[in-house]
């Protein structure tokens, strides 16, 4: 599932599937099927549904950013458009008693996303780089502004709501329960991911990479860079629309917030956090982001600060994203030297974690100090209750943060050496 071609192409007949190609997909399917048996609560299902929507949207987004080298600041528009249209379809089906089963809705979401992308892409993909980015930003703002103006289509500030339990039950399922929705979304998540992966292995998908790397040379190989970008853009619009339909099915409402610039920014962040250089990067990004967003926001009001810090750290220190960090370890694993890294990792990362906890405690105390209502000076942090106006609390948090940092820094040299050793073949050169 990485960007590099499989070695197997040389030794095995080109037309046979290998276990290595099929296994990740079978694993993903089994994982999604079994997950609700572990996390049964409705709250967990809500998080998992949101996660799957983000996965599809982030993968669609990365068809542009990672695969095609197009930086879009307005991709939520295609998700939103597909979603709004699906709400209208839902309502029309209910009013007229049309025989359209709910699980097929994402096809229509996709087609509407594709339709809009075809129109916008016909002129926005002419150039890549800054021009493309600026056009995407402009179009994003334009269409987002339309949501409050064209009320019939987008329902103004209330948005458009509907009822997914309209119409006919499918094999006896009426989609009253979260778990039924979960499996519908799960099906579309796997199918969409598989189709997007396969797209990247087609001639136009391969040329998307070529155009990303060197549009000029691609033109000297018979391909118009502009049309290659256009096809990627349309495909990406389709899957963004599918994600929009998933939103419609899951929440039964779409508002202007779904296609806002904020949403477009979030998906860029998700893709980058996960790693745009690998097909599966955005999947990791979507999982981590959704977990942080939903779990962290339960515990702290300043969760966005932590998210921003994580994003910054990723961009600055690991431009390959979380997927890049994972893939860095593949050569080490191949050499069978993973054991060399275990202790140094513990000795560096554990104090680093302590330091992060210290810093976040400091942030929380300051936040409480500034924002708690007068008289309410008591706060609870990491199961300890204390007075947030007491300087001692801040001092302890600061000392913990500084001490953790100091130890982590002191041990980081050891980690660096271990990393070097783990990447050096036995008896080979450095």
């Amino acid at each position: 599932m990485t960007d590099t071609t499989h070695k197997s192409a040389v030794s095995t007949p080109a037309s046979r599937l290998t276990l290595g190609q099929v296994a990740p997909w079978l694993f993903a399917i089994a994982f999604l099927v079994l997950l609700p048996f572990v996390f049964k609560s409705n709250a967990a299902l809500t998080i998992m549904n949101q996660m799957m929507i983000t996965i599809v949207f982030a993968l669609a987004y990365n068809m542009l950013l990672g695969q095609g080298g197009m930086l879009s600041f307005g991709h939520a528009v295609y998700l939103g458009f597909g979603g709004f249209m699906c709400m209208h379809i839902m309502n029309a089906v209910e009013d007229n008693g049309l025989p359209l089963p709910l699980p097929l809705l994402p096809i229509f979401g996709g087609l509407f996303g594709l339709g809009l992308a075809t129109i916008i892409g016909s002129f926005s993909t002419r150039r890549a780089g800054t021009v493309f980015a600026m056009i995407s930003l402009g179009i994003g703002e334009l269409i987002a502004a339309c949501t409050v103006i064209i009320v019939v289509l987008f329902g103004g500030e209330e948005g458009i709501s509907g009822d997914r339990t309209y119409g006919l039950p499918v094999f006896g399922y009426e989609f009253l329960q979260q778990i039924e929705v979960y499996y519908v979304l799960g099906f579309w998540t796997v199918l969409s991911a598989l189709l997007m992966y396969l797209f990247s292995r087609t001639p136009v998908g391969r040329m998307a990479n070529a155009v990303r790397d060197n549009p000029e040379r691609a033109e000297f190989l018979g391909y118009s860079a502009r049309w290659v970008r256009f096809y990627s853009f349309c495909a990406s619009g389709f899957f963004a629309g599918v994600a929009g339909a998933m939103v419609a099915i899951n929440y039964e409402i779409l508002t202007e917030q779904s296609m806002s610039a904020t949403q477009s920014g979030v998906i860029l962040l998700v893709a980058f956090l996960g790693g745009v250089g690998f097909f599966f990067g955005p999947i990791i990004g979507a999982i981590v982001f959704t977990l942080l967003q939903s779990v962290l926001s339960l515990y702290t009001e300043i969760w966005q600060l932590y998210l921003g810090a994580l994003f910054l750290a990723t961009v600055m220190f690991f431009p390959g994203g979380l997927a890049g960090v994972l893939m860095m370890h593949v050569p080490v694993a191949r050499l069978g030297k993973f054991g060399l890294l275990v202790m140094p990792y513990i000795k560096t990362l554990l104090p680093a974690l302590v330091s992060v906890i210290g810093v976040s405690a400091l942030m929380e105390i300051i936040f409480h100090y500034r924002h708690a209502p007068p008289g309410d000076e008591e706060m609870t942090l990491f199961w300890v209750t204390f007075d947030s106006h007491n300087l001692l609390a801040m001092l302890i948090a600061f000392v913990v943060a500084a001490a953790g940092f100091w130890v982590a820094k002191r041990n980081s040299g050891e980690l660096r050496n271990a990393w070097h050793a783990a990447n050096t073949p036995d008896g080979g050169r450095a």
Partner: protein
Amino acid sequence: MNAPMSKTAVPALQLEGLRKSFGRTEIIRGVDLSIQRGELHAVIGPNGAGKSTLFNLITGRFAPTSGTVRLHGTDLAGMAPFQINRMGLSRSFQITNIFPKMTVFENVRCSLLWSQGYRYSFWNLVSRSRELNEGADEILEQINLTARRDLPAGVLSYAEQRALEIGITIAGGADVIMLDEPTAGMSHSETDYIVELIRKVTENKTLVMVEHDMGVVFGLADRISVLVYGEIIATGRPEDVRANPKVQEAYLGAALEAEH
């Protein structure tokens, strides 16, 4: 309009009154040149004479200020590089121009896609076509890069990138091949090898080549054009060009001396 000529008489490439100015400086100053089908043609000349610019005008990278370029009799005016490539013309670059983040194999495979008729297909999987994958591996074998197959092209050494540059150019099997200093930066043995390869893959094809190595030029070319300050001062068979006093004075004297 010209009367239709018999097919064999149409030159593979025909330049008429070709001119190109960048701002107020005229770099190509009226070039007329006709290259027959199957001819191996070398363009030589001092640094800055406009050889690469001439290539850029022919292949659609730059639009000429005036004059025409015909490929197999078709006027190329206003055509984009990809359209010209689809008509069977492929070129390499003096400054290596590859896909650095893709693997060496992918680089070559991408250059086979259009010529094998895949166009903008999103319903074929590249891994499923034996013709495509074996074709790419065959090219890798020819340019001696099989051992580097799965590395990102950007990490190859300079000479290896030059070989890949040639591989990408010849992969599609175009019938007019234009190489801009293919052997620059290669060692003697690498040069000998590449020249043999060029000879092999351009059999029955038309080759236009810019080259500074006079050994290569006189060993390979059927005809030679000498470009000096944007003008062709001589065109002809190698021995005639070598004997031409104007050429001796402007370029060859110095270039041949440098060889020894």
